[in-house]
């Protein structure tokens, strides 16, 4: 069973969001997503400084099995990317919620947070997908 931390918010497309103490949002892909993908070998991330909108493609993750787009759950300016993934993409598999994070944004519209899934909602979405 994959891990779904209760303090995070989610998209049904398997991204997670963590609201940091300074109000910025860190984004990555879930344990379930990395398990589906298998070994991650490349991660393409947005440029620092880029303005992105909720729902935009913000990058690509390529695994031995498939390529998958990463969607931004929120609108805002990209203020940091996880440069360690360039050398060590396997961090996404090993530690998807911490060392395997993708990028951080300065949120431009906090009302968008309401549209995100809770851990319970996301778990249900995963189950529904598996039943499909």
């Amino acid at each position: 069973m994959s891990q779904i931390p209760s303090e995070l918010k989610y998209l049904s497309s398997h991204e997670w969001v963590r609201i940091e103490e300074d109000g910025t949002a860190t984004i990555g892909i879930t344990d379930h997503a990395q398990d589906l993908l298998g070994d991650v070998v490349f991660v393409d991330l947005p440029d620092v400084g880029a303005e992105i909108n909720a729902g935009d493609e913000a990058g690509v993750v390529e695994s031995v099995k498939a390529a998958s787009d990463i969607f931004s759950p929120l609108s805002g300016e990209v203020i940091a990317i996880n440069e360690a993934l360039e050398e060590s993409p396997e961090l996404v598999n090993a530690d998807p919620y911490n060392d395997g994070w993708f990028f951080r944004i300065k949120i431009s519209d906090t009302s968008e947070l309401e549209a995100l899934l809770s851990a319970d909602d996301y778990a249900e979405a995963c189950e529904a997908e598996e039943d499909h």
Partner: protein
Amino acid sequence: MGNKTPLYETHVACGGKIVDFGGWDMPIHYGSQIEEHHIVRKSAGMFDVSHMTIVDLSGVDSKKFLQYLLANDVDKLKTPGKALYSGMLNAEGGVIDDLIVYWLGDESYRLVVNCATREKDLAWMNTQASGFNVKLTEQPKLAMVAVQGPEAIEKVRSVVSTADADIIGNLQVFQGKVAGERMYCRTGYTGEDGLEVIVPDTEVVAFWQALVDAGVAPCGLGARDTLRLEAGMNLYGSDMDETISPLEANMGWTIAWQPESRDFVGRAALEQQKKSGPKFKLVGLVLREKAILRSHQKVITALGDGEITSGTFSPTLGFSVAMARIPAAAEGRCQVEMRKKNMDVEIVLLPFVRKGKQVF
């Protein structure tokens, strides 16, 4: 639920992630496909390949029958146990399956064919066998473990009887030898030295465990695929099928044209194709950017389009490689239609990797 090999419970207990593979429930990896790949290149890993189909052939006409059935010529097998890789073709020269045939001595041969093609292979062989005095016997009670890597042979020798260890020590490359109910074959599908060991299904779990205890890492079919692709070895159903001739599948070397008097199934069609020149060839593609070539992507050359038949990330090389069928005269560079844009790739001769080293 698919078919299960005798090692299925062992795979599950070891944390193997099970997927469907040609109707069989098989482990794709036990955690990390890439780590398993590296273990085979550097030391020793093992694969459950019990899903493959073993067929024994006997009867006074068995040699004559195989000389008719296969594009390669079993007359090349002069030492008992020696193995031959061949396509089994239809009348149009398309590949029904690729297989390995061992000459066990006298009129006795053993064939190892793919699992996904088992039924059609057996049906085809039985049809072609009419008029020959041969007997085909499938061996569903035999399991098979491929132990591969630079340390594989020594590891296997450490877990078998002294007599069997001596047999293994004397095997030439591409030779097998029956020892009691087992057969040790110095063959594989990874580009590394190693063995494929055929054992009774009742013994295979203990044999597997002994190898685990000797430090051989269980590896899944995911690593097997990246290893064989780096080694430039074809996968039936992806790199060739019944519509593709060996000449267009980098298997020209498996066609024994001499002696001209030997008529084999597909010969006339192949001769015609050879005369007019095959339109396509199977080559390697190399992409050094941060993206991965995948099967079925379109290949664009100055001489026309082709298609990727197998593509992957090469763990040994650190970039993506693929096998692709492209117009026969194309060379140099070409483009591949990727998810969002076309990318420039290099056309190379196969294989990519042999014994752990880049060779193209």
